[in-house]
Structure formats: structure tokens, C-alpha cells
């Protein structure tokens, strides 16, 4: 007498679990251009590396003899896998079963996900498409009425494990369809989040919104990319699911598997003494002309290594990951095309989150500076720019990683302080303009009466701006050792490669969690 009968039932359940919500529901998912969660997991992981946990959990119905009559698998899939040959936890809602609104076993797996990742100290990847809790409870109105309701009073807050995961391991998430309620909160409780063109992120969907606010709005208009790709809810927007998986895989490649280890250094084929001739003239001498800072980034950091995060919001500020001689670094910079590179409320939030990301995972920061200051004007004031901006400045002032700042052009205002770390390495290009405020605004503020009283006000304004500009020259500052050096722009890469070589040994002492818990 063996246990074969039980083992056969187990095999049946495993097979039934592969069907997820059933043939019809799977077909409906596909018809919308969406993959099932099992297909997504297969696509994002290294081939054949998925080790599922709880693959036979779910709701069962048995006949009077105890034989399995029906099996609805847990509608949340969870397990280990490999990405870039490194172990990770991967998880996501099964939207084909109950619209991803968790059934009982699904909920248990779902809230266990973060604990699994931080207990094993491996990155966590969450692939979201689903709604939050149903009013009918997990398992719906068909479930038998339980004897006790609600969690025990001493139950740990659900989001404590979410916070612990963010403090311990890289967490990357994707919105691959409609994501509402609890899954939406998990989506943004991550270090890197991405949404597809076909996805929506919602606190609650149109039915709930319609009932509460008495208006009709589609889920696309409520929470599609036109809303959330541009407001900092997620970092990146991609065309489709394959691109989402690619971006998550790429993001993880710059980071260590957990905070107790350092970012993986790869061997670089880009020579550290590469001096790009274009850098000598890339900043126009005409101060009104813009230039492409992303080209500077490409010419200075390891070739092709720049992975931008948050390109679509806070666009005057640029943040992203890259490598310098194979060492992963954070890059913070400005795009003069957008509001002259000015740091807005959104840009400040992006910068603060980014600095904290680098602090958490021990990424040295390279700052390429062209900052006119926080954004000014009525809209900027309404958006509380000074509060968000000062948070970014404080994040920089208390940063624990090594910083190197290259002053490329403007360095003004309180905002410039968001681009320097404590005891940082500071060099400047001859094109640098350094002062409390850009001359145009500064002269308008300080000399308004003198200009108005002049015979030719415009000429007087120009004369004063010229004079004040002279005071902003970088040359006397370099002569006064107000920075480590004034450099030939073409020497930027070699200079930074020397710096990264000097600071690499210092990263060792940064291992471990940061003193502050990272917040979304």
C-alpha cells in the first residue's frame, strides 16, 4: 500500500493549475493582447528557471468519497527563478481567474511575496494585473461563512513586509493591464516600476468612481499612460510586455541582489582614457542655445550603459543608472531643453527618490550639472516646489555614497545643492556659470530701478547682465580652490574613471541597510 493515490491527485491539481482561469478566460486575456501570468513569468525569467511555490494550493470541491471534483487554483502565482543567472522571487496576479481579485489561497501567497524575498535576500519582481479586495471577501459570496472574521488584532501590518522588502532587496514591478487597489499600492512600493501602453493604474475603477463621484470616466482616461507615465507614479513607460520585462531585467543588472552586497562590477570594453572631441564644443557659447545633455552622458559614461529612469516627468532633471569602467553608478543631470533644466516639484521628487535609491544600493553618484535653480512662477508655487525641492537638497546633503560633480554650465540657486554630495569630488568645465541666481533674473531683481531710470533701459540691462556674468566665471573659483579642478571637457571621462577607481574601496563600508527606510 503506497501513497500513489495521493500523488496522482497532486499531479492532477498541478495540471489543472496550469489552466489558470480556464480556456475561455485565457483566450479573452490573449484577445486583449495580454499574456497570462504563467506566460509572463516564463518570458521574464532565464529559460526554465521557475521554481513555483504553492503550485497546488487553491479551492477544492470533493464528492462524498473525498475525490477531487473541482479545483480552482490560487489566483496568485509565486516562486523563485533566475534573471541574468541571479536568483530572484517572481510573482503576480492571475487575471484570468476572478479578475485577479484574490481568492483565499491567492491572498495568502500574495501577502507572503515580500517576506519570501527579504528572507532569502534576493530581488523581487512583481508582474501586476489585478484588482484589490472584493466587497464579498476573498473567495467571493460562494465561500462558506468563516467562524472568525478579520485578521487577529496582533497581526503585523500588511505593508510592514512591503517596507522591509524595499529596505533589503531590489524590488521591480510592472503594470501589464488594469491594476487597481492593493496591487496598485504594491506596484509603486518598488525601486523601479514600469507600465505598458495597454495598462492602467487606479486607486479604484470606473464603477467605484461613478458611484462616489457621480461621473463617468473610462479606466484609460482615469489611470492610463496619459496620466501616470507623466506624473511620477511609475518610472518608465514601455510599448508592450516584452519591453517591460527587458527593462526590469536591465534595471536589476546594475544592482546587488540585496543591500548586504555591492553592485556587480563588470569588465568594461570602453577605455577609461577615451577623450571625445565633441565635448569641447558641445556646450554652445551662445547662452541662449540648448544642447543635448544625454549626448554628454553617452560620451562620458561607459558606452551604451545609460539606463534612464523617469524620462517623462520632471523633465528638466535627468536620472538614470550607468557604468563607469564597469562600476554601476547613478547619474543625476539636467536637460536644458525643458525649462532650461530647472528642477520642478516633479523633478525634485524624482531626484530625491533617485538619491535614496543610490544610497540604498551603494551606487556612487555622477552629477553632470546644468541647473538654473528651482522652477519659478505661479504654477511652480502652486505645486509647492520649494518643499519638494528642499527634500531633494536634504537627500543630497545627507547622502552616504561617494559623489562626483562636473559643473557643465549653470550652477545656481538652492537647487544646485541637490547636485553635490558631502565630501564630493568637484570639477568644472570652462563653460560653467556659478552664482546665487542666473544673471537675467538676478539683474531684474537687484537693479530694476537703475534700469528703469536709464536713458536706454535695454542697453543698461544688457550692460549689467554682462557685468554680473563676469562675476559668475568659473576661473577665479578654480584659482581659489573652490573646486578640485577646472578641466578640459574632453578629459571628463578619464577624470571620472580615476575618481571611480579611488572610491571603489570605500563602498565596502557601505554594505548593509541604510539608516532610513526607503519610502515610495
Amino acid at each position, binding site marked *: 500500500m503506497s501513497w500513489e493515490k495521493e500523488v496522482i491527485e497532486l499531479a492532477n491539481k498541478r495540471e489543472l493549475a496550469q489552466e489558470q482561469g480556464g480556456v475561455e478566460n485565457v483566450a479573452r486575456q490573449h484577445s486583449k493582447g495580454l499574456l497570462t501570468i504563467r506566460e509572463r513569468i516564463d518570458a521574464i525569467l532565464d529559460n526554465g528557471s521557475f521554481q513555483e511555490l504553492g503550485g497546488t494550493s487553491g479551492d477544492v470541491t470533493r464528492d462524498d468519497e473525498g475525490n477531487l471534483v473541482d479545483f480552482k487554483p490560487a489566483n496568485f502565482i509565486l516562486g523563485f527563478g533566475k534573471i541574468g543567472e541571479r536568483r530572484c522571487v517572481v510573482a503576480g496576479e492571475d487575471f484570468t481567474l476572478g479578475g485577479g481579485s484574490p481568492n483565499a489561497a491567492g491572498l495568502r501567497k500574495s501577502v507572503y511575496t515580500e517576506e519570501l524575498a527579504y528572507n532569502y535576500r534576493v530581488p523581487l519582481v512583481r508582474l501586476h494585473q489585478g484588482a484589490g479586495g472584493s466587497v464579498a471577501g476573498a473567495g467571493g459570496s460562494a465561500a462558506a461563512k468563516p467562524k472568525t472574521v478579520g485578521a487577529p488584532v496582533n497581526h503585523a501590518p500588511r505593508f510592514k513586509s512591503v517596507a522591509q522588502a524595499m529596505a533589503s532587496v531590489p524590488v521591480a514591478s510592472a503594470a501589464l493591464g488594469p491594476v487597481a487597489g492593493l496591487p496598485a499600492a504594491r506596484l509603486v512600493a518598488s525601486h523601479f516600476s514600469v507600465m505598458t501602453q495597454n495598462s492602467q493604474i487606479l486607486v479604484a475603477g470606473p464603477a467605484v468612481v461613478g458611484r462616489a463621484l457621480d461621473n463617468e470616466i473610462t479606466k484609460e482616461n482615469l489611470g492610463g499612460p496619459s496620466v501616470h507615465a507623466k506624473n511620477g507614479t511609475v518610472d518608465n513607460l514601455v510599448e508592450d510586455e516584452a519591453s517591460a520585462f527587458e527593462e526590469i531585467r536591465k534595471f536589476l543588472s546594475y544592482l546587488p541582489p540585496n543591500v548586504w552586497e555591492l553592485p556587480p562590477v563588470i569588465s568594461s570594453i570602453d577605455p577609461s582614457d577615451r577623450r571625445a572631441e565633441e565635448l569641447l564644443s558641445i556646450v554652445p557659447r551662445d547662452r*541662449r*542655445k*540648448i544642447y543635448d545633455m544625454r549626448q554628454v552622458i553617452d560620451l562620458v559614461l561607459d558606452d551604451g550603459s545609460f539606463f534612464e529612469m523617469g524620462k517623462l516627468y520632471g523633465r528638466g532633471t535627468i536620472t538614470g543608472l550607468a557604468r563607469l569602467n564597469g562600476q554601476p553608478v547613478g547619474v543625476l543631470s539636467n536637460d536644458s*531643453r*525643458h*525649462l*532650461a533644466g530647472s528642477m520642478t516639484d516633479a523633478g525634485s521628487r524624482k531626484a530625491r527618490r533617485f538619491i535614496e535609491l543610490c544610497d540604498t544600493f551603494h551606487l556612487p553618484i555622477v552629477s553632470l550639472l546644468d541647473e*538654473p535653480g528651482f522652477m519659478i512662477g505661479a504654477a511652480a508655487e502652486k505645486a509647492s516646489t520649494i518643499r519638494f525641492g528642499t527634500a531633494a537638497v536634504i537627500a543630497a546633503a545627507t547622502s552616504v555614497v561617494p559623489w562626483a560633480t562636473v559643473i557643465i554650465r549653470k550652477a545656481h540657486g538652492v537647487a544646485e545643492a541637490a547636485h553635490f554630495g558631502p565630501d564630493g569630488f568637484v570639477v568644472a568645465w570652462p563653460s560653467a556659470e556659478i552664482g546665487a541666481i542666473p544673471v*537675467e533674473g538676478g539683474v531684474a531683481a537687484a537693479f530694476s530701478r537703475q534700469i528703469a531710470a536709464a536713458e536706454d533701459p535695454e542697453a543698461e540691462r544688457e550692460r549689467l547682465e554682462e557685468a554680473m556674468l563676469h562675476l559668475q566665471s568659473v576661473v577665479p573659483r578654480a584659482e581659489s580652490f573652490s573646486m578640485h579642478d577646472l578641466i578640459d571637457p574632453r578629459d571628463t571621462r578619464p577624470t571620472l574613471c580615476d575618481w571611480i577607481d579611488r572610491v571603489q574601496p570605500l563602498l565596502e563600508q557601505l554594505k548593509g541597510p541604510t539608516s532610513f527606510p526607503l519610502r515610495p
Partner: protein
Amino acid sequence: MANKVTLDTAGNMWKVLVAEGDSVKKGDVLFIMEIMKMEVPYEAPADGKITAIHIAEGDADLEEDMVALEIE
């Protein structure tokens, strides 16, 4: 299929360098906005003819995402 050139940001129209009916090549500068004392040029995304212009020099406070002009 008309190529719609939309504004990336709100701002003022400093110079408009093309007129309806002009032929342009990909990369030609079509118009320049002035934002925070910087000249922000907009280039033609493809070769074509300007079929519609919705902006004029001196326009102030134009809205982000508005269609500035169309090229076919």
C-alpha cells in the same frame, strides 16, 4: 498620414521659420520656442510639406501637447 508636431512643453513662440505649403526635410528647424530665456528648437520629424500651421510668432502661453503644425 500627417505628422503632427506637438509642443513638449507650455511656453512662448519666439520664431516660426516655415509657412504653410513649404517643403521641409527631416531635421529642418520649423519653429523655436523661448522658455526660461532659452531657445528651444523643434525639428521636422520627417521630409514633407507643411499642410497646417496653428502657431504664430509672438504667441504666448501656448499649451503643452497642442498640435503646432502638420506635415504630410
